[in-house]
């Protein structure tokens, strides 16, 4: 999981820099501390050394504690270099270092793992592995024995820097079309601006719609209240939102209001539907009959009769034939037509 790349892009750097616009800037160098001590020491080596020099170790650690106490009280004294002290007691410190290193490495690994998990989102990965370790010149001069603090310089951007690819960007790039450079202005922006300018209007409109709906749907709600099937109390009755059949009915009425064809209510077998329709027509005819007998003029006109009246004589086309009538099938000559001519001849 650790790509150790040594990038050789310098050869083309001159050409590329002209072409690629720099957007991110490198962060100022961060100074840190890290030992340069090689980690190659085997565990077995450590053990051997530990056994041989336990006494010395105790003494040294005692001295070390003393030094720390002193430093907490009075601050660090020039010349008393903690690393030098560490050097003088290799075993203990080696272990410390190792554990430190392990700890560090673990942290780094965690960081890197995290990077891998959310890599695609941003420019955030910190490439610790590529960072340069630098020794200050004076320390390098002084030799290995007096190993001072190391300066670690991260030339890479930090995880916090760099733009984050938005979902919209991803959508634009990963769509089926050619990727666009500029995001299309989003609708939500416009909407938010509107709400800022006139929030009261929107609230009023909402209330208005709610009221109108209530008026329109009150009969359905009332029906639901009288519905014997929903007798007794349940959680459904208590909730403000209509539930079950009522909800469906309301939904249907709204759809109809919007201009859809009525869905003719519930689904049922054809025979039942026929029965209902027959009963309806029966009722209506009975009612009309009754009204007629009683001499009551109904407000509703009888639409069946009206439909019949509507039929207008159809244009039958040109009448160019001298005999018979022309149909799609051809010229039809009736017996009378034939008779006309035949009788004439006989006369």
């Amino acid at each position, binding site marked *: 999981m650790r790509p150790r790349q040594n990038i050789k892009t310098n050869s083309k750097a001159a050409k590329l820099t002209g072409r690629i616009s720099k957007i991110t800037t490198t962060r100022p160098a961060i100074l840190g501390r890290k030992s340069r001590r090689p980690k190659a020491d085997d565990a077995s080596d450590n053990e051997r050394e530990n056994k041989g020099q336990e006494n010395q170790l105790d003494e040294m650690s005692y001295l070390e504690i003393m030094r720390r106490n002193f430093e907490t009280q009075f601050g660090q004294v020039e010349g008393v270099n903690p690393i030098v002290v560490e050097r003088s007691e290799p075993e203990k410190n080696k272990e410390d270092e190792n554990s430190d290193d392990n700890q560090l490495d673990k942290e780094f690994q965690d960081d890197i793992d995290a990077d891998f998990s959310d890599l695609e989102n941003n420019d955030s990965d910190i*490439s610790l592995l590529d960072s340069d370790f630098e020794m200050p010149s004076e320390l390098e001069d002084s030799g290995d024995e007096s190993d001072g603090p190391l300066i670690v310089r991260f030339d890479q951007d930090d995880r916090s820097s760099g733009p984050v690819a938005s979902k919209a960007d991803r959508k634009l790039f990963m769509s089926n079309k050619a990727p666009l450079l500029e995001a299309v202005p989003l609708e939500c922006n416009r909407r938010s601006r509107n709400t800022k300018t006139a929030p009261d209007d929107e609230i009023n409109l909402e209330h208005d719609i709610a009221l109108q709906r209530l008026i329109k749907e009150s009969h359905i709600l009332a029906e639901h209240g009288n519905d014997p099937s929903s007798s007794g109390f349940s959680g459904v009755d208590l909730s403000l939102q209509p539930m079950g059949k009522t909800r469906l009915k309301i939904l249907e009425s709204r759809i109809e209001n919007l201009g859809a064809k009525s869905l003719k209510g519930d689904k049922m077998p054809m025979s039942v539907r026929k029965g209902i329709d027959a009963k309806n027509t029966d009722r209506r005819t009975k009612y009309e009959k009754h009204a007629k007998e009683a001499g009551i003029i109904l407000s509703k006109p009888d639409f069946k009769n009206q439909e019949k009246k509507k039929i207008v004589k159809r244009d039958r086309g040109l009448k160019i034939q001298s005999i018979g009538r022309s149909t799609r099938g051809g010229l039809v000559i009736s017996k009378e037509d034939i008779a006309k001519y035949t009788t004439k001849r006989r006369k």
Partner: protein
Amino acid sequence: MSLSSNKNILVLTGHEDFRRRLVMSTLSGKAVKITQIRSEDTEPGLRDYEVSFLRLMESITNGSVIEISYTGTTILYKPGLIVGGTFTHNCPLSRSVGYYIEPVLLMAPFGKKATDITFKGITSGEKDLGVDIIRTSIFPVMQKFGIDRQELRIVKRGSMPKGGGEVKLHLPHLVLQPQTLHATKTPQITKLRGISYSTRVSPATVNRMIESARAVLKPTGCETFIYSDVARGEDSGLSPGFGIALVAETKAGWNISVEGIGAAGSVPEDLGAEIARKLLEEISVGGVLSRNQLEMGIIYMVLGKEDIGRVKIGKGSIDERFVRLLRDIKAFWGIELRIKEDDDGELIVTVRGTGFVSASKKIA
């Protein structure tokens, strides 16, 4: 079967640029006879993918005549009219769908109907352009010539060798002729983007490629987004595979792109880094048209109005393929391009369009 030796027939030799020659023949309306197709080969004649391409040509044109000799080393093609239409093309597994899509892109805008083709097979192969490159980098070239609204939907990704991928190409925009191009300034790159995809391998592969590619691209200081596309279940074709396509976007709308697919045993990190370096190399070539866009760009320019079009290309773009392209252009249209070095050390290609007009948009 008579391979008639009419004087109007253009005779070319060799198996190279087979697709392009047939496309040029269709666009120029000149019949072409290609001889000596792999005549020295142990397996002489047309390959299965070439025959499949001929089938595709037959589907999108009307009235074209194809005569193949007994050995398959000679073919006579008399072009018909480009019609387009909706159909499905099953690509053989020897080449990826890019092999078939590329020529379709050159012909479809001049057809009678919108072209809507479903290609089935390998979506990203080694030899041909992958579907991601076509969408992100070739479509923008078409848009520069006034051909818009292209769509390439990747339904399923199919890797080598078994394929099983599916893409839908939709080209609804029909034009009379391509617009004249004037692009004499090498654009600056604003964004580096990419798609890392995998089929039937661990999804971590994708992130490994992204990681290494980003590490290489980091010194450029350009903002880099590489998106992952892990095909799962039904969408992932029949073979395991992975790949990465990187695109350098410019403000002018030209996209430079490279891609690579993982071979057997290749390490995702290596692939990611290699492709990232390839992208840098491609950028360093310079010019407006990158190498994988050159053929389409030049052909559209040749087809343009009878006007001078200019485009800048890098010196590195001139290779044997480019020379062959120019030779073919001369054979079919009898025109030559003027290439002149400019102050930046890059080349300006000047083309006088042939005044081609789409047969189906012509006013009689």
